[in-house]
């Protein structure tokens, strides 16, 4: 083999490894840009939709166009930043047959995952920043001027995250019985769309629906914090909001631990 052929072969082998790195970086970046792009598309649609809806009126369901737009844009930008992944973790532990190893650890399984999730909410907030900036700069979402509104947002954002965590934990226990999680997760997302206030402020719902929705974990995690940040809810209501979130946490936490203790007894390890 001549020297030049050897060199070409050398080059082709090492370049292919180099290309793999480009692929890897591109994929991470690609997902970032695509998510931002999806956010922008949603914001364009929302802005056009709400402007058309408000074409002949200044107030609807007690909200002005500016407040409603701020709400829906913030809801889209934050895009469940305080969501929980514990549901998937439980399912994954079960399907890989490694749950019993997790349970053998001298740590509280539930608390461990709560801390894991809580850290991810900080990352979630950071990741929402580009979409939030686009929302404020391009789509004129309004930031509150009252410092208390930010306080109310942060407190209810994290408490709401905890409510969702315990709820998702409870849901994850279903995987002990079904060993199937994908369909159930889509089902849950659909139901969350009804009640969380991720699409529209709950103020637009008929009274009965609004009362039911407000009591769900979905609304506690999404509607409550965003309504403070968008000016839909007055920061003076913070006390009530916190109380209601704490009660939800208490009830769902106890329930989830009870269900987990029952469910773990029927654990079937897939693939032995």
């Amino acid at each position: 083999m001549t020297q030049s052929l050897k060199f070409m072969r050398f080059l082709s082998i090492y370049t292919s490894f180099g290309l793999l790195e480009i692929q890897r970086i591109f994929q991470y970046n690609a997902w970032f840009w695509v998510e931002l792009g999806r956010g922008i598309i949603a914001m364009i649609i929302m802005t056009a939709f709400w402007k058309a809806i408000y074409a002949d009126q200044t107030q609807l369901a007690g909200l002005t166009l500016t407040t409603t737009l701020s709400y829906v844009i913030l809801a889209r930008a934050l895009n469940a930043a305080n969501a929980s992944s514990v549901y998937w973790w439980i399912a994954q532990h079960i399907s890989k047959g490694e749950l019993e190893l997790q349970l053998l650890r001298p740590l509280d399984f539930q608390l461990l995952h709560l801390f894991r999730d809580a850290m991810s909410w900080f990352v979630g907030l950071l990741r929402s920043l580009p979409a939030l900036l686009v929302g404020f700069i391009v789509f004129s979402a309004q930031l509150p001027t009252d410092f208390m509104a930010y306080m109310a947002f942060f407190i209810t954002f994290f408490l709401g995250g905890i409510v969702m965590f315990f709820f998702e934990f409870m849901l994850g226990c279903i995987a002990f019985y079904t060993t199937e999680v994908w369909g159930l997760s889509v089902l849950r997302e659909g139901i969350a769309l009804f009640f969380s206030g991720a699409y529209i402020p709950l103020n637009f719902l008929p009274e009965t629906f609004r009362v039911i929705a407000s009591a769900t974990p979905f609304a506690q995690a999404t509607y409550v914090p965003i309504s403070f940040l968008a000016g839909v809810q007055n920061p003076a209501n913070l006390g009530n909001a916190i109380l209601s979130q704490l009660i939800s946490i208490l009830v769902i936490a106890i329930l989830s631990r009870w269900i987990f203790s029952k469910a773990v007894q029927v654990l079937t390890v897939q693939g032995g």
Partner: protein
Amino acid sequence: MRYLELYGLFFVQRLKVFLEYRLSFLIGASSTFFMQAGGLFAIWAVMRVTPNLLGWSFDQVLLLYGMVALARSFELMFANNLWVVGQHYIRSGDFDRFLVRPINPLFHLIADRFNHDGIGNFLIGLVVVIRSSLSLNIDWNLEKVLCMVLAALGGGLVFIALNLITCVSAFWIVDSAPVTLAVHEWHEFAKYPLSMYSSQIKTALTFVVPYGLVSYYPALFVLGRDSSFLAFASPFMGMGLMLIGYALWNVGLRRYGSTGS
């Protein structure tokens, strides 16, 4: 004919998997129903307060929504593998399986997995279209029925073709899902009247990423608001895009070197 027979065989295999995991099948098939219902509920709640969206009533918006769901269900049911060609087939080296068999690799990829999640989409699309057209008292004639059927089938073709064009990027970057998603997301626009958007977006949705041909133009025709040829354009646009997609697919296939795993 041979390919149709083969598709039947693949389908039967897939059905056996479903029967093995019956609960999973039922949940999967009904889950998209709830996702769609969630979106519809939000529109209903708003239009309950103001029943007018630039001259479009709630039932008319429902019609658009249902038509998009119906067209998309064909992509979901029959061509869902285009989403995961990179992640599930090329990355794992599983794609090589298609290359050593005496059938068209693209056909094999598509036939490899019938996706039952699409059934829910199809049913909700159908129910929403029927429900809205009943309350709109549409004066049906052969032309209008033809327009709706073509919009659903041609629309399905548009969805599949755009996914095919974008999934070809998997031959270069392996995971093509973000590229597909970036284009696919535009279908969200078509769930509302295009007159709501700026003229640039409207043009893009008519000629570049023609999801507007799936719902808006056929709906205008069926509602008797406009009789533009665009109401019948989705099958032609779909076929044109399919040809482009297939040509690109072949370019990608020639370039394809296995991941070597």
